[in-house]
């Protein structure tokens, strides 16, 4: 018997059949069947939306680009870090019809070797899936997410510091329900905020390490303390994390690094880093005579800002693109690089292009000094730059400084053209001479020792 019924309307559009006979379907029956399918889809969508509101935007509609749905599933699974275990699994294939054609911000065609990376999709406002009333995400985090997605806050230290502020605000405003304990419930309350942040932009290692730390601190709060006391303790933990790991660590690193700068040096730096600029300005304050070679690269060209800061302080600068690195490298005496993380097998994760500079410097026997705070050390191990990476806006590669358009400006229409804009790359330890951290100056390969030391301390 073939009976078609709908879930919501409960209509029965039934046709009783004889065995193995297909009745001719009337127009009305076909119409009713179609309506039934639509109702089913609408119900599913409704369910999805409810789950989204609970999961705090974790099920945000990742619009599936043509022909890349399986990849979107994978990327959806990978992209939510780290606290998104409760996320519903059926996110990526919405069964509804596609709404009016949204501009395919991911572009046609994906590069196969990079298909495990989440495509750049920040054209969709991250707050789209959030509703005002039932959202579990604190407004401080909403704001932070948008700032990160729009590249208003960039840089590993800055992003971590901003996260610390947001968490502090959250804790201040947090009221533990009477029946729950703060040490178990606060983590649950923070989870949707963190997963929302992860969707706005992939979290940096610095942010991940802070989150790990604060979650541990929350679970360790003594149950004897009152709520307010516990909150104060946690606020102190946050501030302390910032003070020790970012502020004081930066000072300590710059002391050690400045001691290595001698008069007459030509120091090469890459793009813009808050820590490196701090070191150079400190060296200038100590009246050292040196020059700086700023190496920059497309598409974001942040080295220009570095140049501006340095010339404002009176340090003589030169400026080149990374293509010309071999041309100028023989004049350089030291290379000073910042990093986003130090991996447990000694690889340095930094802005893309760092590895190239390390390679050229080691070919010309120029010492490569990497500065990294210990809180950025990560337990992850990897040997190449592609496995853990982030894709940035491909359209920023089309910007040209002269008035002409780039010749691949129409790349989305062309089925054969793809643009890839990576954010990170990993430098092998053989290319790095020394890593300066606040506790010691180490070779790259000592990273696991520091990690273990940190774990033992806790």
């Amino acid at each position, binding site marked *: 018997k073939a009976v078609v019924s709908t879930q919501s309307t409960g209509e029965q559009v039934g046709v009783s059949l004889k065995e193995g006979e297909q009745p001719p379907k009337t127009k009305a029956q076909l119409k009713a069947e179609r309506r039934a399918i639509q109702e089913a889809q609408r119900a599913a969508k409704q369910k999805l939306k409810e789950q989204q509101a609970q999961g705090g935007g974790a099920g945000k509609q990742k619009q599936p680009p043509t022909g890349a749905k399986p990849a979107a599933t994978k990327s959806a699974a990978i992209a939510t870090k780290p606290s998104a275990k409760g996320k519903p699994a059926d996110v990526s294939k919405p069964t509804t019809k596609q709404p009016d054609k949204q501009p395919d911000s991911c572009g046609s*065609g994906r*590069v*196969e*070797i990079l298909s495990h990376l989440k495509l750049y999709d920040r054209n969709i406002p991250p707050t789209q899936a959030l509703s005002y009333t039932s959202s579990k995400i604190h407004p401080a985090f909403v704001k932070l997410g948008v700032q990160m997605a729009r590249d208003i806050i960039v840089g590993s230290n800055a992003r971590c510091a901003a996260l610390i502020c947001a968490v502090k605000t959250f804790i201040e405003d947090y009221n533990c329900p009477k029946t729950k304990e703060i040490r178990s419930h606060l983590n649950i309350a923070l989870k949707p905020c963190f997963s929302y942040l992860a969707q706005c932009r992939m979290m940096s290692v610095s942010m991940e390490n802070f989150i790990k730390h604060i979650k541990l601190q929350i679970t360790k709060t003594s149950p004897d303390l009152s709520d307010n006391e516990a909150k104060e303790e946690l606020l102190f933990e946050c501030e302390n994390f910032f003070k020790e790991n970012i502020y004081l660590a930066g000072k300590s690193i710059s002391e050690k690094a400045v001691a290595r700068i001698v008069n007459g040096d030509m120091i090469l730096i890459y793009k813009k880093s808050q820590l490196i600029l701090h070191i150079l300005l400190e060296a200038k304050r100590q009246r050292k005579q040196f020059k700086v070679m*700023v190496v920059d*690269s*497309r*598409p974001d060209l942040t080295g*220009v800002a570095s*140049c*501006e800061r340095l*010339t404002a302080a009176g340090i*003589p*600068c*030169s*400026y*080149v*693109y*990374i*293509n*010309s*690195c*071999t*041309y*100028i490298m*023989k004049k350089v005496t030291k290379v000073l690089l910042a990093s986003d993380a130090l991996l447990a097998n000694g690889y340095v994760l930094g802005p*893309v*292009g760092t*590895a*190239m500079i390390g*390679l*050229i410097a080691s*070919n010309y026997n120029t010492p490569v000094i990497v500065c990294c705070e210990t809180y950025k050390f990560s337990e992850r191990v990897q040997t*190449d*730059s*592609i496995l853990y*990476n982030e894709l940035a806006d491909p359209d920023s*590669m089309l910007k*040209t*400084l*002269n008035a002409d358009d*780039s*010749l*691949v400006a129409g*790349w989305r229409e*062309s*089925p*054969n*053209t*793809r*643009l*890839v*804009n*990576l954010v990170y*790359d*990993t430098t092998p330890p053989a290319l790095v001479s020394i890593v300066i951290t606040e506790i010691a100056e180490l070779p790259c390969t000592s990273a696991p020792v520091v990690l273990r030391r940190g774990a033992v301390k806790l």
Partner: protein
Amino acid sequence: AVVSTQSTGKKISKDTVSRLEEFALYLRESKKERRSYVSVVKTVNVFRDLICTSEWVTARELIKIIKSYCKYLPLSQSNETDVSNVVRRILKIIREENAGSEATSFADGLSSFFKSDMKASSIGRPDLQDNILNSIVELLSELETSKSNIINMALEHIHSNERILTFGHSNTVRDFLLHGRKARDFEVIVCESGPSLKGHKMAAELSDGGIKTTVIPDSSAFAIIHAVNKVIIGTHTIMADGALRAPNGVHQLAMAAKYFSVPVIVCAAVYKLSPTHLCSYDPDAFNKVIGPENMLNFSNEKLHSKVLISNPDFDYVPSDFIELFITNTGGHAPSYLYRIISELYHPEDYDLDNMCVEAVEDDICI
């Protein structure tokens, strides 16, 4: 610039003079987008003209005329190596035809070192001129077929499902890859080659030809090169030891390729092979520094006035980074190029300013 006839004492017709001046102007002006092949063919035609219309009796005089004309061309600048190479080919042709039946090659033993190939030969001007012009016609056809010879080797060097990395824009490499696409399916990753962004043009042309192309900024080359099968690049000039004068950024790409043991293949016609070596890294001697307007906007005047901005055009790539040269005479290892140079050019022509043709009076050449 008027072509002076004082050094040779012979007259050159007005027509020829105007054509020579036009050619000198062409070289001076169209520096940026000049296509190697086009200028090389022009060069041959201009010099063929010069050979036909100028007054000379012996080969020695003809060589003097040609070399004195070369003084008026901006050949000492780094850009013009293809023109100088072709002039050297023509000079070699003249010497060979002059040596005629008593053709001496260096393989004939030590005595051939001491025989001058400039002794007055029995061939008179009309015959000599005919022979020379015939050889020049062969040279022209070799130049014409140089590109097709290179691209026909594409299928020997590209297998299917390969990932090939290339840098910036090169006509030879583009046609090489498009020819390979006809039979094999592969993917190409193009480095942008900023600040000129020539890589974008290459990517557009390749994807129009049906090849899946990915454009990456130059800084990502190291990150992605381990996943690439080979690097195929073009070059501006090949130096005598197998090193390259290539667009800026190729040296670091070759370094990264060597680090990951990815072979680097250079596609270039043999008229780009120059018998010169690197004498200095200075912009005047080897490199060329161009304006920084593509790097930093002139509107940012406080930086432009305070910061030293360098935008070199070329890069020196030592020969140990190169695996193979694909030229119109076939594929060669960098260590073999010296042999090709000795076949193509005569040692006395390596330095085109060298007018020591007069010194070769006797049989002993020192």
